[in-house]
């Protein structure tokens, strides 16, 4: 057991936990940030994706002790108040979800993609997103949503106009 200090969604946290514990477990169980989901526990499905210093990481296979003071962004930290991030808005507009369980991981991966490539081609989207599983099969809509967000000039800026 150790006290781990974390910077999540621009807030500081201190958690008494074994450093070997998965970041996902700490987010969900200790900090009640349940937007990141458990899907497989082996980094295969992407439901637990968060940003660590802007890069998409699978939090279920990331040891909390390895995070240090890097900036962690979870789905809860993406919108600015009621104002949705452009990628969140695009997922809504494209109807890119059914049960929505994969959605937060999909959105976090998409945000990371658009950060490094603001106007990805369809095949670049497919390559980048291939580690995220949507069992409901909304892939075509997710591709569409990412293209929409790219057009809206997503980057890290929130969407224009208020979210709903």
């Amino acid at each position, binding site marked *: 057991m150790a006290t781990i200090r974390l910077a999540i969604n621009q807030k500081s946290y201190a958690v008494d936990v*074994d450093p070997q*514990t998965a970041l996902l*477990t700490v987010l*969900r*169980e200790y900090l*009640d*940030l*349940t*937007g*990141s*989901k*458990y*899907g*497989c*526990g*082996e980094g*295969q*499905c992407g*439901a637990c994706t968060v940003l660590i210093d802007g890069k998409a990481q699978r939090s279920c296979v990331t040891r909390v002790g390895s995070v240090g003071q890097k900036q962690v962004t*979870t*789905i*809860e930290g*993406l*919108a600015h108040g009621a104002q*949705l991030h452009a990628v*969140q*808005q695009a*997922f*809504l*507009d494209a*109807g890119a*979800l*059914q*049960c*929505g*369980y*994969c*959605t*937060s991981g999909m*959105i976090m991966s998409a945000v990371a993609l658009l950060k490094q490539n603001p106007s990805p081609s369809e095949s670049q*989207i*497919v*390559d980048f*997103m*291939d580690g*995220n*599983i*949507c*069992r*409901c*099969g*909304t*892939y*075509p*809509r*997710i*591709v569409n949503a990412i293209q929409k967000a790219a057009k809206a000039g997503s980057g890290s800026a929130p969407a224009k106009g208020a*979210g*709903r």
Partner: protein
Amino acid sequence: MSGKPHAELPLEPERYELRAAAPYRFDLGRRDFFKFLGAGLVVVSVLKPALAAQESGGGRQRRGDSLPNDIGAWLHIGENGKITVYTGKVEIGQDIRTSLSQAVSEELHVSMDNIEMVMGDTRLTPFDMGTFGSRTTPTMNLQLRKVASAARDILVGLAASQWKTNPRQLIAVDGKVKDTAGNRSIEYASLLNGQQLTQALSAEDPLIPAADWKVAGRSVQKIDGVDFVTGRHRYPSDQKLPDMLYGKVVRPSAFEATLLSVDTQKAEQMGVTVVHDGNFIGVAAPTSQLAIAAAKAVHAEWKAEPQTSNRELFDYLRKNTVEGQDVTGDGDRYEAGSVDAAMKSADHRLQQTYTVQYIAHVPLEPRAAVAKWDDDQLTVWTGTQRPFGVRGQLAEAFHIPEDQVRVLMPDMGSGYGGKHTGETAIEAARLARSAKRPVKVVWTREEEFTWAYFRPAGVIDVMSGARSDGTMTAWEFHNYNSGSAGIRTYYEIPNQRIIFHAVKSPLRQGSYRALAATANHFARESHMDELAQAVKQDPLEFRLKNLKDERLRAVFEAAARQFGWGRSKSAGQGFGMGGGYEKLGNVATFAEVHVDRTSGEVKVLRVVSAFECGAIVNPDGVRNQVEGSNVQGLGGALFEAIQFENGKILNGRLSQYRVPRFSDLPAIETVLVDRKDIPSVGAGECPMIGLAPAIANAIFDATGTRLRALPLAPDGLKSR
């Protein structure tokens, strides 16, 4: 069973679920319920006996139990104008929270924002058998429309008596009643001030015809979509209670294993609750890591018998039938004409066998439950398609009356027919009882792969006969184990013998999106292509020659047009089709594949589906379901299969069990055939059934190789 399946298959219950005991009681009598709701207007939907029997789990398995309750849904309009709809159906990603709100909004003339849907809470909502079998749209949608329409009429009536005027000159619009003759209007809420009104549904109440729908029939975004894209929505696995512990169950070494001995001493020293009750061993601890560690510290010895594996599966299925014990409830056996004679006199005869492996649902959210006891009252939040069924399971497991059990179902991370049972609910409740604190159990992916249930494997034998002009004359079809959904043929064949053979399944099996309709359509529609080839006809022409059903013909023709059937193809390219009828919907799917002759890689490049489900309520929602069915269907068609041996699952992880990903994605085009003259039916299952045969037929078209086993090409075609 004739050539008119549409007319004869009215409402089809989910067969595999009929074995589960169905509870029949309400937690609250009507009187109590109205008290609970407080002032305002309550409109209750009373079901016709036939529908009540089906939706409430009556019908053939009633066996002398008390009659199922006859109430389908409630709608309450409060004094504040807030509309609350109570239905036992649940939201699992099919977006009925949205489409049912649309229906109410349409009939009641209120904004969807003013409607709250209370779903799948066994204390607050009317009994419902479960959310499966594509039942919500044809039954609940209709009930809610009727309830809402009745409520509107009552409100208009209230206004008329308040104004002492003729109700015919009053209209309901935008949450108000307006007088068309004068300049006055009054909000619904004001009409209900201080009143408590209840009304049972008038069955004759006319509904707004689909052609005049304003809200229904339009694409609407997921009603609470913002909660999902922000991570705010709390799925069953996200539920948390004060003082809650985390539970972990110690699993047997194999299926059907018996416990020889158990030593829990080490675990008990770790400061956790340890429960050993019969074959159940589990722990509950303040953190999930400690629960995992404590479960590992339990030393249990199990004894398992040798069991069937994939290698001998199909042989096993043929040899282990339990004729006369149809677990699917149908006892499907159909004969018409004289098959043997017709087969003998046919110009062309064909006999082939098709097989289907067990596959897993892999709902991205595994089973999860939080259980809490207050004295002898049990409350469980869990992800299930059958909250009332789980309530019954809990009551049975703990020997308590059902009215001491409340099951709540927060909108969950999908099910696809895979979450009809309450394993985690029972496990969490058992641990919570000993721990005297709330306990949460969330299955790992490996547990979900191993201890849930599978889509049934099957062997299907097909024998057919046709005249040289392509007229089908004889059809014999035997399905071993996979199920009887979609077993009947919609082609016009005078002589038929169709039999479902129940089998003692080596693995736990149950419902799956579209059930056996996928296997039966795969066999039938593959065989249709084989027979078309035998009589030297184009597969589409051959089908249409033997197909009278107009709705099915329409989707085949619509899909063929969109696909461009009849185009010439290049090397490695192949086109194929498959289609049919299931859960009252009609679908035809055409596929284009490319097979790389050197690598053996099979790539599905394009899929076109034409789908018809009566009057469409939410077009974009339907498209989403058709696309999703085709994407999910890719897995079962091409590569998904459970590997098992001696009571163990060998590929129970996502790194070992391949499901469709972005890179598997073909171009998908959906043609919606909107029939406003036909009642709306569900869209979650039927669209799946055409894909596997379409791909198999396209692979044959590309390569001349006929594949008759699902999955078709788990490792490409190289090994063949």
